[in-house]
């Protein structure tokens, strides 16, 4: 573990009395490797290590009897702070319906997460409506309908020959008429560099003005996470992130990269394929998971 590695680094220096700035740099190199192995973005790691170095110098780690422990504590604190110090909740509209839009790359877990969110909100006494705005992927609409059936939540669909913008608009009217106070829009997976499909998302946003735009990110995403998050955020001004497939053994450094580059909070984590596997995000737990 990183903790053991750092203890090792500082043990080697014990015989020399106080540790120097150079020794601290050696220790931080171990932290850098740990973060890169955890898939935190290269540039995010660079900035993070610089900040930690300054703070460590400022906190007189060099004078400490247990420099290794102090460095780990600083790293952990800084990481937790960066991840977002508090758990973020879903915004509810003062004027219903509350519209939530799920966006992200292909296969990240949008449709499944839409179902999970619907289930969570229904348990809280709300009346969600799931909306099938993916008109491209084979059987995408069917997939959402199956989830809706399993959860006893209505699914609004207009088939795959109507534009997602029109489907979204019609869904809002449908919700108003049927008393659904939450509308969850499931959109097709797309590349952040696909201009036409990214434009489609902008048009949906303009049309129905969602109060929540959630970027669904696969927790095992590597260095590319910053490119994706930046583009989606630039175009849509995200309100939050859902980090999926955290039930695996990925360290999940993408979470740090996405937060660092967009400033937007991770609101939920997906912890399994079943529809009850959605949990609130715990920044401190994520920080220690990333450090490994």
């Amino acid at each position, binding site marked *: 573990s990183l903790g053991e590695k750092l203890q090792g680094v500082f043990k080697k220096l014990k015989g020399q009395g106080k540790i120097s700035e150079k020794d601290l740099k050696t220790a931080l190199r171990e932290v850098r490797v740990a973060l*890169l*192995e*955890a898939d935190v973005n290269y540039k995010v790691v660079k900035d993070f290590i610089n900040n930690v170095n300054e703070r460590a110098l400022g906190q007189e780690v060099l004078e400490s009897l247990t420099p290794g422990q102090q460095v780990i504590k600083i790293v952990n604190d800084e990481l937790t702070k960066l991840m977002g110090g508090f758990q973020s909740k879903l915004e509810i509209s003062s004027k219903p319906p509350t519209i939530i839009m799920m966006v992200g790359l292909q296969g990240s877990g949008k449709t499944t997460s839409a179902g999970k969110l619907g289930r969570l909100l229904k348990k809280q006494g709300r009346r969600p409506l799931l909306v099938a705005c993916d008109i491209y992927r084979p059987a995408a609409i069917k997939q959402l309908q199956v989830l809706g059936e399993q959860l006893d939540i209505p699914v609004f669909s207009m088939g795959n020959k109507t534009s997602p913008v029109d489907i979204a608009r019609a869904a809002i009217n449908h919700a108003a008429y049927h008393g659904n106070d939450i509308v969850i829009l499931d959109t097709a997976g797309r590349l952040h560099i696909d201009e036409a499909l990214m434009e489609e998302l902008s048009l949906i946003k303009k049309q129905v003005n969602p109060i929540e735009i959630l970027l669904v990110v696969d927790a095992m995403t590597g260095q590319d996470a910053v490119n994706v998050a930046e583009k989606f955020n630039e175009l849509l001004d995200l309100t939050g992130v859902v980090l999926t497939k955290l039930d695996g053994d*990925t360290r999940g450094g993408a979470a740090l990269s996405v937060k660092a580059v967009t400033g937007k909070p991770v609101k939920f984590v997906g912890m399994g394929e079943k529809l009850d596997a959605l949990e609130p995000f715990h920044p401190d737990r994520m920080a220690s998971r990333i450090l490994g």
Partner: protein
Amino acid sequence: VFSGKKIDEELFEELEEVLIQGDVGVNTAIDLVEILRERVKSEKIKEAEQLRQVIVEEIINIMGEETSALNLTPGELNIILIVGVNGVGKTTSIGKLAYKLKSEGKRVMLGAGDTFRAAAIDQLKVWGQRVGVDVISHKEGADPAAVVYDAIQAANARKIDVLIIDTAGRLHTKVNLMEELKKIRRIIDKEASGALKEVLLVLDATTGQNALAQANTFGQAAGVTGVILTKLDGTAKGGVVIGIKAEQNLPVKLVGVGEKMEDLQVFRPQDFVAALFT
């Protein structure tokens, strides 16, 4: 990154950065740059542009310079098992592969081995229709081993050349799901001994270092013979496959470059390495 620079520590750092940003992994990147340093010394390399050739050579050395073909034998039933974690592109890649093999004149059939995920069978059936190949399936919730068994019987009866079997996405950390995969393999080996020619692990190019653990665990459980690297039409480079080839000798056979039927290409090591540095 190579143009007009002089060979110094700063250039080596820049190279390490490019490799890491391509998901090559910090340890593999450090090793590669170390080899580069040694070759610069021993071969007295002076021009930064020459470094490009050196690092391309070193990575090709790992990846292999030939494209790795699918191990299919004409005149008999060949079975391809498709495995991987959730959402990486297994079902879509099967549709693309069926199209490719059919256009090469082969009789292809698909087995809907994902009986778990919502509308997974429907999704594969749409691909079957698009490509014009039969899909063997049961109802959602059926035992995947039973579907595999039926698919093999049907493939033999209809003199199929290639039977491609779809499986449910599963995280490699789920022991019971990996056991299910082993069971599917056993059924294939029992009912069609010698027919299983390829077990292809589908990896998403956007995946980071976790891909190594995936390759390792799936490799041990299912006897993976090659990789399909998908979503290379994005901005991710898929550099993890270098470490996977170095550690586990798993070659990338095919790459996915889009969501349409035709968006499957043979893996070309030269193109892959070149893309790492653009």
